Every structure is written in C-alpha cells, then in structure tokens.
C-alpha cells in the first residue's frame, strides 16, 4: 500500500493546507511581531499610505504600553483579563463539576438536564451578551426578580455598571507580582520536567537560584522586560484592581461555558469503572469519600484540559465584552478590544504590540499543554 507514488500523492494533498497555515498563521504572526517593534502608525498622517517606511524602534511600543500614562487603559485591560480568567475558571470548574456530580446520581431525565445545561454552548457570545445585558441591567431584569417572587424590594446590584474596584493595587507592585508569577511558573515547569526525566534535585535548585536572580534583576533594574514605574497616571485614572463591573460578564460567560466542563467531567466519571467504586464502598468509604478519593484524582487530566481550553478562551475573550460593555468603556475592557480600537484608528504598531502580548500569554498556557498531550499520545 505504501508505494512511493502514493506516498508522494499523500504529501501533495496535504501540502496546500500546510502552506496556507504557514502563511496565515506563522508568517502573519511574524509580520505582527515586526510591526510591534516598528513605528508604523505612530504618526497618524502617514499610517494609511502604501509603502510607508517603517522604522525599527525596539521594545518601545511595549514599554509605552506598560508604563505611559496614556496607556493606562491597556494595563487596566491586562489586569481585567487576569481577574476575569481566575474568577471565570473558578466558577466554571466548580459549577461544572457539581453538575456532573449531580447528573451521576442515576437521575431521571438525565438527557433533558444535559441538554439544558449545554445549550448555551451553541450560542454566539454576542447573543449571550445581548441577553445578559438585559438581565443584568441596573434597573429591572434579575434585580426585580425578588419582587416578582416574594414581593421584596428590588435589588440594587450594579452587575455591569458598578464603578467600585476591589483588590486594589499599585501598578509597580503589580509589575513585581507579574515577574514573580512568571518566575514561579517557569520554576514549576522546570521542576515538573526534571521530575519526569529523573534529573537530580541539584538541577532544580540551580534553576531556582538562576530564576530568582533573573526575576530579582527584573524587580530592581527592569532589565529583562520593559516594565517600569508608570508616569503619573492622569485623566481616566481610577486605579488598578478588580473592576466590579466585570462580574456581570463573568456570570454570562459562566452560564455559557459551565455546561462544557460538565460534559467533560461527566465523560470522565463515566469512564471510571463501577467495580472500582464498589470496591471502595465495600472497604467502608462513604459516598463523599468515593468522590473525593477515587473519582476526583482520576479526573485530574480532564480538569487540566478544561482549565487550558477555558483559560485560552478567557485570555482572548473579546466578543462577549464587546457586546456587553461596548468598545469605548475604559474600565470594563480587555486587550482584544483595545487591539480592535487601535486597528480602527490605524495605530498599527501599538495594536500589534497589544496582540503580541495576548499571543504570549496564551502561548504560556497552550504550548506546554500541546507538548505533553502529543507526547503522551505517542507513547
């Protein structure tokens, strides 16, 4: 079957796809990377001219994003994404696991329930945003539900338009935390691979010291990432932290994605043999212990998949925020929105830098995942 002619045909058949992806993914990413270190569009007058000269400016654009007063909005967007990811992941995983747990109790009409919990997945984020904007508006919607049910006073929650900021911090300190997080992440990754490959703990210790040195260099001298103390923030400055108005968007996103986690966990739970559970019960485990000690540990790979999939969705979330908060909201915004804003106003270099930051954040999550996933598949 594997004669040379047919093998050549096989390769020729997949070649166009490979070339297209090479151009549309990798070449284009390369171009964006180049724009992000150029001055294209910094002068709005020449931004649209064909063949305009682009000059290399190094990491200036990133530096501006991280520290200039006028780019306060980007730093807000950046922290918003991090908070959004944490709360959205937490809510989805908890609710999703709870739903899977409940559906696993030999429920009547399981199919109907599953359909109900999963249907939001088939909707567009734009549709979800439209609907939840209505439900979460300050006057009416969910806020008046208690009156309808018990005749109580309507609630006053500002789900989508609160202006309070929780977990406030200063950007400088946030920058430090950022360095620390990256260093810790790299260290965890290294420890993990060291363990897998049975490297000695000496190496782990050495890596720890090196990373500590690098990150502390980052704290003091801003050597390896262009973050330094922002100029006096002016204008729209409200402070950095968790903008409470994100809550409504998190609720909407959880409503849409929790069913997905449920489906993943349910498939996982069903894959665990009934004998194993029965054996645990015979040994005197209560039902709760069966779930805690038998089922949960076996679901770890699935939980990891769920975290990666949801994490990469939330790091690049854009449409839902666009539909719920609009494009001009400076508090409730994410990098994806800023990129489009810059795109529309021909600030090519700056929006390329924003896009590259997004790509970098997502690569941190996705590349290790793809790596381990494809390796285990091979074995």
């Amino acid at each position: 079957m594997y004669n040379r002619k047919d093998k050549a045909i096989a390769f020729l058949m997949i070649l166009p796809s490979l070339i297209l992806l090479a151009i549309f993914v990798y070449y284009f990413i390369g171009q964006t990377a180049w724009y992000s270190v150029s001055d294209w569009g910094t002068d709005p007058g020449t931004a649209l001219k064909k063949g305009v000269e682009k000059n290399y400016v190094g990491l200036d654009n990133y530096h501006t994003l991280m520290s200039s007063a006028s780019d306060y909005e980007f730093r807000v967007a950046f922290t918003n994404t991090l908070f959004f990811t944490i709360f959205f992941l937490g809510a989805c995983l908890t609710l999703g696991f709870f739903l899977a747990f409940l559906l696993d109790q030999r429920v009547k009409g399981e199919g109907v329930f599953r359909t109900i919990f999963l249907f939001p997945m088939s909707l567009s984020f734009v549709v979800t945003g439209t609907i939840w904007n209505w439900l979460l508006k300050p006057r009416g919607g969910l806020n008046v539900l208690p009156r309808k049910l018990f005749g109580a006073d309507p609630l006053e929650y500002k789900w989508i338009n609160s202006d309070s900021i929780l977990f406030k911090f200063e950007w400088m300190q946030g920058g430090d935390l950022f360095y620390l997080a990256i260093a810790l992440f790299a260290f965890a990754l290294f420890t993990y691979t060291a363990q897998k490959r049975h490297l000695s703990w000496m190496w782990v210790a050495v890596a720890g010291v090196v990373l500590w040195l690098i990150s502390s260099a980052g704290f003091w001298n801003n050597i390896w990432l262009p973050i330094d103390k922002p100029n006096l923030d002016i204008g729209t400055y409200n402070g950095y932290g968790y903008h409470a108005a994100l809550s409504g968007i998190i609720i909407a996103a959880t409503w849409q994605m929790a069913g997905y986690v449920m489906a993943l966990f349910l498939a996982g739970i069903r894959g665990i043999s009934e004998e194993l559970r029965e054996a645990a019960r015979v040994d005197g485990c209560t039902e709760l212990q069966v779930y805690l000690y038998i089922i949960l540990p076996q679901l770890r790979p699935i939980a990891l998949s769920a975290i990666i999939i949801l994490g990469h969705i939330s790091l690049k979330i854009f449409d839902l925020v666009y539909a719920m908060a609009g494009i001009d909201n400076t508090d409730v915004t994410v990098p994806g929105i800023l990129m489009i804003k810059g795109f529309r106003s021909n600030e090519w270099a700056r929006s390329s830098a924003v896009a590259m930051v997004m790509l970098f954040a997502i690569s941190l999550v996705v590349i290790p995942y793809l790596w381990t996933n494809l390796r285990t598949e091979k074995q």
Partner: protein
Amino acid sequence: MNSLTIFPRTLIQMTKPLRATVARILGNKSLRSVAAHALLILLAAFFLIPVYMVIITALKEASEAGREVTAWDLPSKLNFESFEIVWNDLSPNLRNSFLLVTAATAISALVGSMNGYVLAKWRVPGASVFFPLMLFGMFIPYQAILIPLFKFMDNVNLYGGLPGLVLVHVVYGIPITTLIFRNFYVDIPNELLEAGAIDGAGFFGIYTKIVFPLSLPGFVVVVIWQFTQIWNEFLFAVTLVKDKWQPITVPLADTAGGISVDWNEPMAGAILAALPTLLVYIIMGRWFIRGLLAGSIKG
C-alpha cells in the same frame, strides 16, 4: 482553658448535626436521589431564566417591554411586531450568514477529511513536527494575525466581501477539522485499507471507495462544529467585511452595546441569530458534544 481556645472546638461541634445530615443524605440512596433531583431542577431553572426572559420580552410591545414592574410577567397580549421590524432590518445579514456558513463549512469539511486521511493513514515525513504546529493555529488569538491578514486581503482584493471571509474561515478551520477527522480515521482498521490496496486501489481509490463511505459520522461532527463556530464568529466578521455583507452577529452586537430603552427588538434579534445553531444543537446534540470533546485534543 480560656474561651478563645474552646471557641473553635465548640463551633465545630455545633456543626455536627449539619454534617450528620449531609452524610445521611449522601449515604441514603433515595434521599440522595431526591436531593439531586431538587438541585438539578433549581439549576435548570437558573439556566433557563434567560430563555424565558428573551421570549416574553420579544413578544411584548415596545412600551411594555421597557416597564420594569411587569418585566417578569407574560406579555399582556402577544405581539409579533418586533420580529417583523427585526426581520426587515436583519434579513440581509441572515442571508449573508447562511451563504458564508454553507460555503465555508462545506469546503473546510472536505479539506479536513483529506488532511485527516493523510495524517491517519499515510506516513508523511515530518508529520510529528507539523501536526503540533498545525494545532497551535487553532489556539492563537486571531488579533495576532489580524493586521497582516487585513493587508493581505486588501492586496488580493478580497477585503469587504463574503468570498474573503469564506477563505479566512476555511484556512483557520483547517486545524480543528483535520484533528477531528484524523482521530476519526485512526479507528478505521488498516487491514481494510490494505485489502483495498491489494485490489489495486491507489491513494484516491482507497479514499473514495473505502474511507469516504465510512466517514459520515466524522462529517456530521465536523459540519456541526464548523457551522456553529462560523455562524457565531464575530472578530473576522466585524473587521474584514463591509456593511452590506456583514453576518448577523455584527448588527446584533451593535444593538446590544448601544443604550437601548426598548428591549423587545434586541431580544427578537437575539432569537433570530440564535435559532439556527440552537436548532442544530437540539436536533443533533449528541454529535455536537462529540465535537466539543474533540476540541480538547484527545479523541
């Protein structure tokens, strides 16, 4: 012992009846089942609240839809006016969406099927390198390629219309469709293909006579997946086409972001935009879930 050290212990002791109740509910099969059903019904109600609200609001008159006091009540009289208005506004966009989705889904399913066949059944040199590189393409934030893409589309005169959007969706759909088909074809026994080869079939003969006829389930999963993804897509739709050719998600997002007092029209618009994918999901839910699970790499 002072009261401070006793306090936590008494607190824990106080929860004993509660813990006992929880343990009893979890231990007793019929009680557990009743509790599970009750909780599921509550949660299902929470998931369905938006559906109820969307439908009743869309069926109200503009003035009634704006009134908070009766927001949760059924419409005083059924009124399909908002659907009429929204239909008049949005039917060109719906047509665009249908054209886009049909063309892009069909092409990307065929491309994915061919790629999956090659990757699953033919040992192509370098596959272990380019397959992961291919998969990475489905995780990237599309903002990272948007500016060069826009320039490229402009240069080849594909900016602004549907053909360009079809091309974009086909290209960026290659990773997921290839992945689903590859995982599907891996399960077809090699003996079957070798039998075909002995009968004299070559690369295409094996595909058309043996693999393709077995592919129906794979096609169903991929078509449903691409249909919903492309129908729901927003970023390319809002940046790469001009007004006249915009798919349904773009005008809908604009009404949602605006400060609209009358909510009956956005709600009717949301129903129109959601209906096609929702119907697909309700009719073919099983296949939809397979696509979802395939998206997490392991088939």
